[in-house]
């Protein structure tokens, strides 16, 4: 007789539990705040560069909220695309979709906090600024790997782990390759 492994997946309760939790409710606010933190250095220094004129009609705080908020919105759309793409893989259906959504946002928050703090090094070592693009790539990738491993450990059978890992990481890898390609093309053109 054939030896089959049957896995029954019912994510409904887990989805309901996460949705009802406090952390799920405050997550969007933290997500936006983390982008304000990430853009703080850029906004601060750009504001300073334009100190003779400024925007005139706004304050620093308003500019920061607009700038950070805009980036949060863009990334929110990117995350939406990401979740839509990973749905194409059947292995991602083994995991509660709310858990994926929340954990990816936590990963982005952690990445923003770390990267935002790194930007402050540029106050004493301004020449680092040009290489922050590399830090961005590395930290984003590390955040995604940690996110994928947490999801795998928590929700996925070890048999499916590599397939789920591939499904979760490949969109990011493709995205980063495109970004590097665009940057290189921008330089050569």
């Amino acid at each position, binding site marked *: *007789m*054939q*030896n*089959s*492994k*049957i*896995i*029954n*997946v*019912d*994510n*409904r*309760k*887990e989805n309901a539990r996460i949705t009802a939790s406090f952390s799920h409710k405050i997550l969007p606010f933290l997500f936006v705040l983390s982008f304000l933190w990430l853009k703080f250095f850029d906004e*601060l*220094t*750009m*504001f*300073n*560069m334009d*100190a*003779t*004129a*400024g925007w005139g009609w706004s*304050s620093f705080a308003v500019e920061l909220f607009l700038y950070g908020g805009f980036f949060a919105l863009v990334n929110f759309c990117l995350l939406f695309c990401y979740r839509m793409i990973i749905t194409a893989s059947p292995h991602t*259906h*083994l995991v*509660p979709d709310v858990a994926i959504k929340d954990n990816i946002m936590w990963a982005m928050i952690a990445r923003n906090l770390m990267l935002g703090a790194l930007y402050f090094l*540029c*106050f004493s070592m*301004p*020449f*680092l*600024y*040009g*290489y922050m*693009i*590399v830090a961005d*790539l*590395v930290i984003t*990738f590390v955040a995604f*790997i940690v996110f994928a*491993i947490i999801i795998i450990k928590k*929700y*996925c*059978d*070890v*048999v*499916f*782990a*590599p397939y789920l*890992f*591939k499904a979760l*990481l490949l969109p990011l*890898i493709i995205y980063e*390759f495109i970004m*590097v390609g665009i*940057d*290189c093309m921008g*330089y050569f053109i």
Partner: protein
Amino acid sequence: MRKWFSVILTFIMAFACWFGFGSSSRKAFASTVEAPILTASIESELKNFLQYDEAEKTRLAREAGSTGEADASAYILSSLLATPGIEAINDGYFVSGVQAVEYVSSNGFSSKSQNVGVVIKSATENAKTVTFCTNIDNVAVIEAVSVGGEPQEIKVFTESVNQSAGSVALLMALARHFATSVIDLGFNIEFAFLGAGAEENSGALALNRRLNTDASKYALVVCVDKVVLGDSNYIFMQDFGCEYASYISEIMVGHYNFKNFNKTSCLAIGSGVNLFSHAGVAGSAGAFYGGKINMLSVFSGNYNGVSGLGNSESTAHKNLTYTLYDNIASIEGTYDISIKTKLGMVASALANLLYQPDFIVEAGKPNNLQNAYGFWYNEKYQLFAYGVCMVLVFVVYFIVYDGLMKKSQKNIADGGIESLIVNIAEPGDPPQEEAKMSEKEEPPKEDKNE
């Protein structure tokens, strides 16, 4: 008694350490020039330059490439050459003190401007040169007016005291001061008054090309820009530490309201002459930033909390530069700022820097930063690092993936599994007994081996 003795001894030791090791090793400022000496001459220089008491003001509108700018240049040159000891620069670039500057203006037209330069020569053979420079042009303020009920925009020019006139007056007073001084400092002092500053520092770039034909001759370029307004005076030299920058900081910072601007970086990669810029070199100094010749940028500003890092202006809580309020009457009357006192302080600080006995040796020490700037601001290197990191990231991805795959295959082999059946509950499905779980239980996975 022993307790008291030890307390007193501790205090004595503390004072000894403080005086012996805590104080600066260099006695900053011999104070050979006091501010009031230069103050009076600066005031008259400013008023003469601005034709303050004259009815017809030909130098008020001195836009880049305009006749007003040419007139201002001619006035500066003729006025300075009337002072004994000041000579017009004459080399391949400057002809009788005038350097022609050609540039493409912001509206796309080819335009012409000029720099004027004078030198106070030292009798020392092969003497090094210190160059002072500032922009002389100004920018019009655009005012909206109604002409016959039709809204129109007109260009209005003001004295532009902070924008350029103040710095011009300061350098003219300094030039005369050094020319009339009986002391030969052992180095040449050049004064360059630059045109077309508002046109991406075209004048400063032209001067930079001249200086770099024989960079070894030049010890330091001092760029003075917008020094009238602001509670503090700032100096900025390099992003990276180097000997000459430490020397000048040690001499200037803490005196005459001077502060260092090195903690507040405001980089804008992709703009500026060398594809990078810094708020500390917002004026003509931008042309010399990151170059072989040592550069000192001098400007004034206010520290207004985190949103103003020193580049903002004045206690007036608004920026007066590039507005109609940038004139003597408004600055001194409305905002109660003494222009001559402020400029006198900056001039005295610069003069005293040059009077330091070891100035030319220390300030002329090569900065050797071209490679550092070349590396850190090179877009090609940045992209290369980015690309290499991308490849590394992919390798890391593959290593983790490979590890998980091996584990998965081992699990399949150990369990002798030949097929996998996955039942995923849909939102409308009835609850499955085996999939039921409380919040504290394991996440939703159930394994069954048949």
